[in-house]
């Protein structure tokens, strides 16, 4: 009786191992996997007090081209598919101002321009959202941007002073971008 029992156990295990089964699996589903997170962070911030603007007279109170590699880094540029830049401008000076932002490529060609004209303070906060990608401007602008030209101009006088505390102009900006990881 022992031998049939012994054989039975072995054949039983073998049967179990060989006839183990699995529900149908579709590993091609991996191709349908989309990993597209959205990241958000501040981009740049400009602040200038009114006394500085006055001291520079009719000249631009700020004008500078500066390097900005955040967008052109391969890890970002190769993967970004769409996004939105959000700007906020706050002017508590006594004069109308204009701020111009230009996105530059490696050769300093202007890819995109954003201009803000702000009335004298007290003004409401000026907010603007600019979309890039699917429903907005070309995402190539973002991908190819490696520098920013920022210019602030005084459109008023250079003598008046606001009665508001610590009068100044502030430009805030942030970006929210969707990047394709898979």
């Amino acid at each position, binding site marked *: 009786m022992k031998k049939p*029992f012994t054989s039975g*156990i072995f054949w039983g295990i073998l049967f179990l*191992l060989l006839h183990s089964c699995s*529900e149908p*699996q579709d590993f091609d589903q991996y191709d349908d996997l989309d990993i597209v*997170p959205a990241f958000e962070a*501040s981009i740049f911030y400009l602040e200038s007090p009114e006394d500085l603007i006055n001291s520079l007279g009719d000249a631009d*109170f700020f004008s500078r081209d500066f390097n900005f590699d955040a967008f052109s880094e391969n890890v970002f540029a190769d993967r970004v598919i769409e996004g939105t830049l959000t700007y906020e401008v706050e002017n508590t000076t006594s004069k109308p101002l204009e701020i111009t932002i230009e996105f530059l490529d490696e050769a300093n060609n202007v890819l995109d321009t954003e201009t803000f004209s702000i009335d004298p303070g007290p003004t409401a906060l000026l907010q603007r959202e600019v979309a890039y990608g699917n429903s907005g401007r070309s995402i190539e602008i973002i991908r190819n941007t490696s520098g920013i030209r920022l210019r602030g101009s005084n459109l008023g006088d250079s003598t008046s002073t606001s009665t508001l505390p610590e009068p100044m102009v502030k430009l805030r900006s942030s970006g929210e971008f969707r990047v394709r990881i898979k």
Partner: protein
Amino acid sequence: MKGHFLFFALFTGLCAMLHAQNKQLLYDFGEIPQSLSVNPGTQIDFQWFSGIPALSGISFNAGSSGITVNDIFADDGLDINDKIRDRAINGMNIRDELSGTYQVELLSIGFRGKDRDNFYSFGIYNEGDAIGYWPRDYAILTFEGNASRLGQQFDLSHLKIRGEMLNVFHFGINRRMGKELTLGARGKLYSSIFDFNSTQNKGAFVTNPGQNNILASTLDADMRFRTSGLNELENAEDEGSLGKTLLQRGFFGGNLGIGLDLGFSYNLDRQTVITGSLLDLGFIYHSNDVKTYTLKGNATIEGVEIILPDALADPNSDFWQELVDEIEELIPFEDDTRGYVAFRPTKLYASIRRDFGQQLETRGICDCDEVVSAGNRMRARYTNSLGGQLYIINRPRGPQTALTAFYTRRFGNLLAAKATYTVDKFSFTNVGLGVSLQAGPVNMYAMADNLLAYSNVANAHYASFQLGLNIISWGR
């Protein structure tokens, strides 16, 4: 670094199919010489044994406590993105793990000494072990990003992984101390082939409203990723000498460590036995080919900040580079080659067993007027054994426990079978079966775990198997 990442990701990925080292089927299975490897104090009656090199003990354990292959890849018509979001991202927690171990015995020999109460054993085995806990906040950040989760702290401590490959050289003694007690001890020399671990991470990443700008991104990091052996293996792979380097590092050319296994068996009465063992109480000191990467510091940034009139002071200032330099200064990413100590995953087994049924004919040399001989203290063997086992392993997120109930049936000296039911974090329905066949001097054994899951392997949280081939003599 990229090469290292790929290397350990591959290893972790392979071991992701593996699981947690519990050898509940082999434990206290005295018919099999390899039971000494899980309790050096187990009750054995061999005169000598010799494992067939590379075939005497092969074991793989596989498992995942969170999700299964079927959860993601079942052909069920559901969108894979929904399945990953619901079952992985939102369905798993940081205690869920992917982990596993394999062992391959290269050499295994044992013999009874002149003092017949002593049994000596020695050998070499190769082992790989890895564990990775579900890095929940990293996964959320990867799949969703931070845009919809402003104000949420992403916990950097969720990254917890470790893995290693090593050869173990061991020598042990199993001594019958009297009618009731058998003690065992085994010294181990570890020869590490490679090791990686990142288990002590702290900190968080959070995006909040900024003071000046719209948003402030804060990274508070204290992270460390330690490796040894990976550089050498990477170079060897490039040079086409990976096999040779693996061999060299496995035979004392890498990093060394020492360890100890302890165990006992004690007869409460002639048919009731308690056992216990403590395995891999040891460490490896890594000083050869070590590379440790650290990211430590705290920084809050609100983008490029141009604050006038200060920003006008230097017309050539590079605002972007200044920001990058500031971040790198506040949170430096550094590497060094200082040595480190890595403790082995220590394991503890304990069991109680009740033997009953017919007494079996003894296989050893003895004057067995009584089943328990006073002369050489051979213990009686019975056709049936029933009992329970406890298993605990030390893991990066604390000890893991498994409870097992078992029944062993012996069919003469020809065959023994052990059935187990195990409860642990991976499964409440883990039924296993192991058999040991003694064909003359040839011993063959095979064991498989979580058999109920074989009806749909893809849906199994855990599976394992062990097999081996030995020559055993009882000196008759």
